[in-house]
């Protein structure tokens, strides 16, 4: 049995057991038990929403420590374009790429460049007649996992092309091997990540057996090093490869704009994504060709592991997008990249909501669930540790909770008990009862 790897984890020390995360989780994957938030592994999609909302910073993402780069002889950084929006004192993208060389990396390759190749491949794919439209972008792994657990009917709509990150790692490894004769096992490729979902997709990929990326360092963790190094860059070598269409992927809508079609829809923020996928599942969006779905508000620039405020970052990156537009990097020819970009395997429906394998038992459980739910107060207060009353009812029928976990139910029980006690108290054993002997005898 394969276990689940999740980047999103809990810092027990910091968790106060409050209800913030359970209420925001889009897949109802968190419960508070014994004063601590527990993540239900099979439900978590690593969207990072809980990391963002936790006021005590008790939710964190497992990423690789910077020191891991020293496990490899030849160290390569592949930064997400989101990184470009993080620094105030950054002159140009090239300036930032050069900073990587001062902090210990031997080479740097832009994920934005690989994004352009994916854009072109997507364009080609969209020309085909036999594809299921609208295509749903697979750039955000949290959304792919969301579809897996909540929208099984949309699995066929997912764009099953490699992610820019994977492709970047492949390209850079191939190039180094061919052009510089560096043995593949000596190369360590590290993704500089804005989010937890990407880390999970490296450690536990769904589209292939093994990721080509060797590690993920969060933008947060590498920020200070780069910040200092930016001040030390004296001579810049030319490292820029990506044009503006690739950099723009950091913004919501960036991937769509690169496709040259007007007929797209870009949605960001996991709860907004859910609304759109609902509409799509109801056959309401059949007139759209491409749907870009990003779990974080604002797109990757709003990632939970970024440093800069989303709106500030947007302004910053706009400058570099405009610069790239003017520079017009030599018309990149994609013909030299002859990669099979299709996924090596498919994602499957994970029926996490199913109450039981057996339909009849599931029916019984659902019946009980609905009747329990009807008797709960419907306040969705979260004090029981479940995100809402219905979720508590679900936990009860699954055997993971009790009705008295609801503080209102508990109070009711206490009151009933008190009434009962009063009643019992008022009845005296006959031998001790000195009140009204005649009345007592009548009863006998």
């Amino acid at each position: 049995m394969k276990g689940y790897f999740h980047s999103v984890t809990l810092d027990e020390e910091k968790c106060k057991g409050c209800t913030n995360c359970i209420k925001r989780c889009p897949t109802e994957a968190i419960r508070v038990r014994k004063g601590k938030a527990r993540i239900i592994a099979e439900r978590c999609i690593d969207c990072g929403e809980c990391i963002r909302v936790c006021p005590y910073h008790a939710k964190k993402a497992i990423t690789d420590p910077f020191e891991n780069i020293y496990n490899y002889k030849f160290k390569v950084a592949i930064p997400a374009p989101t990184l470009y929006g993080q620094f105030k004192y950054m002159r140009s993208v090239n300036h930032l790429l050069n900073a990587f060389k001062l902090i210990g990396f031997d080479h740097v390759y832009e994920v934005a460049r690989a994004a352009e190749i994916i854009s072109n491949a997507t364009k080609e794919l969209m020309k085909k007649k036999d594809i299921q439209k609208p295509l749903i972008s697979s750039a955000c792994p949290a959304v792919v996992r969301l579809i897996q657990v909540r929208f099984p009917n949309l699995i066929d709509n997912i764009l099953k092309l490699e992610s820019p990150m994977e492709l970047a790692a492949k390209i850079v490894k191939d190039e180094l091997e061919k052009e510089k004769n560096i043995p593949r096992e000596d190369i360590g490729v590290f993704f500089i990540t804005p989010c937890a979902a990407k880390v999970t997709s490296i450690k536990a990929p769904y589209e292939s057996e093994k990721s080509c990326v060797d590690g993920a360092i969060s933008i947060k963790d590498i920020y200070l090093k780069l910040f200092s190094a930016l001040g030390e860059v004296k001579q810049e070598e030319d490292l820029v490869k990506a044009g503006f269409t690739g950099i723009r992927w950091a913004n919501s809508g960036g991937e769509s704009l690169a496709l040259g079609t007007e007929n797209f829809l870009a949605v960001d923020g996991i709860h907004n994504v859910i609304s759109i996928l609902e509409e799509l599942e109801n056959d309401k969006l059949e007139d759209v060709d491409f749907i870009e779905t990003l779990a974080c508000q604002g797109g990757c620039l709003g990632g939970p592991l970024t440093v800069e405020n989303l709106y500030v970052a947007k302004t910053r990156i706009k400058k570099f997008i405009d610069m790239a537009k003017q520079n017009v990097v030599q018309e990149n020819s994609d013909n030299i990249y002859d990669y099979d970009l299709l996924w090596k395997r498919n994602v499957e429906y994970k029926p996490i909501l199913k109450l039981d394998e057996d339909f009849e038992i599931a029916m019984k459980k659902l019946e009980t669930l609905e009747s329990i739910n009807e008797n709960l107060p419907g306040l969705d207060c979260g004090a029981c540790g479940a995100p809402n009353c219905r979720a508590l009812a679900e936990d009860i029928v699954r055997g993971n909770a009790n009705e008295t976990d609801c503080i209102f139910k508990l109070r009711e029980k206490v009151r009933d008990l008190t009434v009962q006690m009063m009643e019992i108290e008022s009845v005296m054993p006959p031998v001790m009862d000195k009140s009204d002997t005649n009345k007592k005898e009548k009863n006998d």
Partner: protein
Amino acid sequence: MSNSIIRQSYVIPADDFSLAGEASSCVKKMLNQLGVPPQTVKKVAIAMYEAEINAVIHAGGGTADVEIGGGKIIVTISDEGPGIPDLELAMQEGYSTAPDSIREMGFGAGMGLPNIKRYADKLDIKTEVGKGTIVEITVFL
């Protein structure tokens, strides 16, 4: 076959597009909890959603009754609206009596009833002008 049947009722509010579809969402969730195959869930959800929208557009709301069990799902949408004068015509794709204000919102393309028919395994419509309409959608499990 099981003898247990789950019944749920929902109110379809008048003139509120944002709430229409809520009932079908609830039903979708229940069916997923029962482990009903995704394709079947989709059939029920779309057919029910279209019928809900119809009740909102044409009839000032109504009620949705859902019955799961005995190997099938029956969704009954009842309203006390104007009724459908020519049902055969209404079943044709593209035919719509929705006013412009509703078409401007992207509804009323005349695909409602045809879509319901497409996704329902059995469709039974009882309608009387001036009295209302009852749409009974059956999807087999």
